[in-house]
């Protein structure tokens, strides 16, 4: 079976009768065991790309807490993507309140006029917000002493089979041949928002000033200069690997294809996402008498399977085995890859240029 057919088998369908694939595919791997929920990635992206009018509520990169409803609220239940037989799954456009939008505060009244004593947020309708871009942060699930949560960075998946691209009636969305980055051509976009409907990950925003849809651009102007995306370069936890999926010496290939410990989110959505996650290990549950029960992880495996599919159990087992090896002082290529001894060479080997030198 050639590559195209393998890919067709993997995503379960062909595109317009044939598999259209870029020459190479850039991808990211997030090691969730290292994410500390600091939001530096989100701020790096915001600072670099979404500071203009109309972009106030945009978080092309967002770090949610799981279990949780996320950004936009309850996005996992909205539909979009493809059925196993290849048909597009109908969906809807998330509203601004569901995304969280950008709140306005009554600074004038509190700080200058003295007519109010407390700062109060207002949403775009001038009402008290009912949701925010990270409303359920640190909430998680479970009961003490077995409560749990983990941080979860999300951005456009730059899918192999982008539902947004296929939904646009204007051909305004394209996938770059040299690296598979999915982009919206704002000259062609007329703001019809079918892409926002079709994307099952709900990572596309609408700009109410420019009247176009906008999303993560994988920092393509930085990529073109050999610089890593802002979210990855700024990450203090150094958990965001970036590279080409076919680079057998690079960390992406090692984690996704060789060790098979990095998994796509909701593969069943059928779009072939190119953002992969190393699932979170967790401490054992605690019994009613306060003793650890090593047979049960704190984060229920069923929950992780609902995100990453059936392969997650095996991925966790490999991680545990290799971690134990490393703890015994034995060699582990997997642990060495995840540890990232040399930054930036070990984490985004093709994109090591310091942007300050450009």
């Amino acid at each position, binding site marked *: 079976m050639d590559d195209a057919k393998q890919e067709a088998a993997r995503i379960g369908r062909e595109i317009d009768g044939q598999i259209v694939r870029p020459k190479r595919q850039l991808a990211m791997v997030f090691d969730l065991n290292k994410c500390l929920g600091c939001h530096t990635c989100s701020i790096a992206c915001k600072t670099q790309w979404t500071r203009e009018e109309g972009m106030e509520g945009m978080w092309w990169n967002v770090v949610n807490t799981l279990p949780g409803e996320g950004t936009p609220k309850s996005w996992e239940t909205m539909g979009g993507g493809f059925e196993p037989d290849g*048909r*597009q799954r*109908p969906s*809807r*456009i*998330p*509203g*601004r*309140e569901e*995304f969280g939008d950008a709140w306005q505060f009554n600074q004038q009244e509190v700080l200058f006029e003295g007519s109010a004593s407390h700062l109060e947020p207002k949403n*775009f*309708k001038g009402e008290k917000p009912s949701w925010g871009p990270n409303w359920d942060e640190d909430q998680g699930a479970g009961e003490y002493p077995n409560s749990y949560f983990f941080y979860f960075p999300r951005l456009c998946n730059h899918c192999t089979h982008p*539902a947004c691209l*296929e*939904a*646009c*009636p*204007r*051909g305004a969305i394209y996938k770059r041949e040299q690296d598979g980055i999915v982009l919206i051509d704002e000259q*062609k976009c*007329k703001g*019809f*928002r*079918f892409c*926002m*409907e*079709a994307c099952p990950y709900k990572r596309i925003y*609408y700009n*109410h000033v420019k009247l176009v849809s906008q999303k993560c651009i994988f920092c393509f102007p930085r990529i073109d200069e050999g610089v890593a995306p802002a979210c990855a370069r700024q990450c203090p936890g150094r958990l965001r690997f970036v590279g080409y999926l076919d680079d057998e010496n690079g960390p992406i290939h090692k984690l996704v294809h060789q060790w098979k410990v990095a998994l796509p989110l909701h593969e069943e959505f059928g779009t072939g996402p190119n953002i992969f996650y190393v699932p979170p290990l967790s401490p054992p549950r605690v019994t009613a008498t306060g003793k650890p029960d090593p047979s049960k992880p704190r984060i229920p495996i069923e929950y992780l399977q609902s995100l990453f599919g059936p392969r997650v159990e095996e991925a966790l087992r490999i991680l545990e085995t290799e971690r134990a090896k490393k703890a015994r002082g034995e060699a582990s290529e997997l642990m060495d890859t995840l540890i990232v001894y040399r930054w930036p060479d070990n984490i985004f080997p093709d994109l090591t240029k310091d942007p300050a030198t450009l």
Partner: protein
Amino acid sequence: MLAKRVDFQVESPGDPGARIWERFPARKVALTPTPVGLQNSKYILGKWRDGDFGRTSAVGLQAVHDGAELALRLEWECEQPVASVDDNDQFADGAALLFPLSEASPLIMGAQGAPVNIWHWRADRPTVAHNNVADGIGTSRITRSTLITTRAAHASGRWTLVFRRELVAGPPDAELAAFEPGRTYRVALAVWCGANAERAGLKAFSPEWVELSLEA
């Protein structure tokens, strides 16, 4: 239909409620939903395959000119007008006039080498229509922004809308319909119902050309 020649200095046609429009009968132009099969997006084909869009069944069309400027008035039923877009899932009402730029230009969005000129009004930008050129489905692009002035009103469940443009709005080129008194042209219409999330190819349109003669 005939666009009568009148003196715009005496009777201004700019307001859709102006008295001038009471003097000339409206031509009822039948509309039909765009065929589902022509939607060039698999997502749209799937979600709207039942064809629940483009229910506006007719537009009343009137036209006058004064030798320098053309004014066209449209009137159609719209029970739930949407004139502003505040949230992501809102879409404004719209209407458009489509003129062929060549003898062979197809009514449905033109074709390569046979483009069409589209005057596109939307209720959330009420005073100016966008001048578009298209040479196929999904290809429309805005070429000039301030050539076509519009004024609209919604009352008693109906939109009324006037487009105004100079007969010759610029140097002759492939992007602008041009008009001359004493000659006959063709026009097609489309209406989008924002409350039904209609945008792009989800619309009601006139499946046949309407002949428009400018009185000499």
